[in-house]
């Protein structure tokens, strides 16, 4: 589904990713772990199409298409979703309006019929129940005045509603207490599907106790330096990221 090959990215003139290679198949959950400053968030932003990231080399192929040639909204319509590390507050834009506009814009771009408000609300109620979110969140402005946990749950709620094919979770666990973490994990696990892939970017192994990955990668110094099964996450937790530096093998990749 997703093939990232030899990706080099500069941000504000500084090389952040240099030679990242990562292949993800439909149905798989990949975890990307790594120390602060390794380029984890850069990867999510590049995949979603944010401005300000200069791709100096490498390719990203998504479902056989050149992902880098698509605008952010085209990527969304094609099924790419980024759960933001820091969801943006947008005063004055009602959450329900936003969600419906987003869903219908994607459907329109895919040539599907737009949902009327009854169909939309029915879908919303189903998804809210799964995440134990209050209706009240829908009536507020997008993320405005939401607590940290509410913002992250709102991201997962959007994920559930928009039903993307490739979901990138950028440190969705940061700032969550254990109950909120479980709720977020439940929401993600409910969406696991043979046709859907997840890229779970995290600093801590804790989230991976609840969202069990098929593959764990370690991102350090702008490339994947180690890949393995879920036990890799536990070894990292035990030994810390410093342990990797000592046993790094040149040319390791995912």
């Amino acid at each position, binding site marked *: 589904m997703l093939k990232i090959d030899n990706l080099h990215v500069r941000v504000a003139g500084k090389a952040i990713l240099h030679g990242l290679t990562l292949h993800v198949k439909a149905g798989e959950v990949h975890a990307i772990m790594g120390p602060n400053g390794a380029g984890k968030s850069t990867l999510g932003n590049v995949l979603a199409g944010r*401005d300000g990231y200069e791709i100096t080399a490498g390719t990203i192929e998504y479902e056989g298409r050149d992902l880098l040639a698509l605008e952010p*909204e085209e990527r969304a319509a094609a099924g790419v979703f*980024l759960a933001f590390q820091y969801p943006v507050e*947008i005063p004055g834009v009602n959450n329900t309006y936003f969600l419906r506009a987003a869903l219908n814009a994607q459907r329109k771009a895919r040539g599907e019929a737009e949902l009327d408000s009854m169909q939309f609300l029915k879908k919303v109620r189903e998804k809210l129940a799964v995440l134990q979110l209050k209706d009240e969140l829908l009536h507020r402005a997008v993320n405005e005045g939401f607590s940290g946990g509410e913002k992250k749950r709102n991201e997962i709620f959007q994920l559930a509603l928009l039903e993307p094919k490739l979901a990138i979770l950028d440190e969705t666990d940061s700032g969550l207490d254990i109950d909120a973490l479980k709720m977020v994990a439940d929401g993600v696990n409910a969406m696991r599907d043979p046709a859907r892939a997840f890229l779970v970017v995290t600093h801590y192994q804790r989230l991976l106790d609840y969202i069990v990955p098929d593959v764990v990668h370690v991102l350090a110094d702008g490339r994947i330096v180690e890949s393995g099964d879920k036990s890799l996450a536990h070894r990292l937790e035990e030994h810390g990221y410093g342990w990797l530096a000592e046993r790094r093998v040149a040319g390791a990749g995912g």
Partner: protein
Amino acid sequence: MSALVESLSTARVAPAGLAAVRADALAALQRDGLPGPRDEAWRYANLRAFGQRRFVDGDCGAPMRALDPGTLLGGDVAARLVFVNGVHRADLSTTGRVEGLSIERYAAHPDELAGLLRADLDGDAFARLAAALAIDGVRLRVADGARIAAPVQLVFAGAPADGDVAWSLRTRIEVGAGARLALVEHHLAGAPHAHFGNAVADYDIAPGGHLDLLQLQEAADGASVIRRGTARLAAGAALVQHAVELGAQWARQDFRVRLEGAGARFESRGVFALHGRQQGETRLDVLHAAGDTACDIAWRGVADDRSRGVFRGAITVAAGADGADAQLGNKNLLLSPQAEIDTQPVLEIHADEVKAAHGATVGQLDEAALFYLRSRGLPFELARRVLVAAFCGSVLERLDPVARARVDALLAARLPQAEAA
């Protein structure tokens, strides 16, 4: 003498009182001319070009001009007076009998109108122009204690004519003690034209009176619309203004508020959204002349393409006006590198015990918010419109729902549909 003044100095038949004011206004204009580039109050206006334009004084075809009733603002009205190119249209107006509300046209009271216009001659060149051109207008009185449930609409419509028409209307609104009125001033266009419209208004609010004033300006893109308002508030009186400035090639409003009685309160919520080569200028001038008076001004401005917006909010707290509360906020968005917005908050305080705050910003759309919306699938233009509408809407939350729906639709239609940045 400028081409503008010359073109409007033609002879015309009018009642003696009005003819005398007109002669004096034109004489003063010919003597002093239009404001020069060093006149601070007019430095943003392109008067050199405007002074070269020629207009026809009045539109004799106005009684026949078509106007789509769908352009009028819906909802219940206590009365609606429609003027097309400055000419009253009884066929489009409704003036039912409402207890406590009296509406007179100045065409029937020329001497009273002449008295108002003569006082206007003390103002600047555009005040004189407006005085020279006016032959009609509206005097609206709300009796003491009367609460008029539905709004009164004054509609200033422009319609294409044989040439570019200049017109002027003078209004006077008197809200009695403890009375209440909602007034809508609606400038709109039937079809494209490049007329020059002038509207001058007084608002006198007696003790405890309350005036809700909605000014919706969606004049034709080619039109020039110059408005001037002076409000005087007695003790405990309140004026709540909502101003939405969307139309006209050149739109300017000078709005002065005198808080003359203790406890008088002025609230102003306004938006201007400009595109193309539009120029919009709003100048608010508030005087706290008595104690415990309050003003609360929150305006939003948006400029796209090569448009230029100017907002000036000046608040003066006179000596002795202790307990005054003066708040002024003006936030602006530039949507294009060629657009320009000038904002000038001015606070002048001569009293001791005053609560005052003012702030003004000019910025661009929040890139993070724009990306967030796009990453969820909203196309760039829709995302931009959603953010701009939210930005403007933040000061329109208390607008009546019928008017709000109209404003939202207008904003959506007028806001940029342009190319991706």
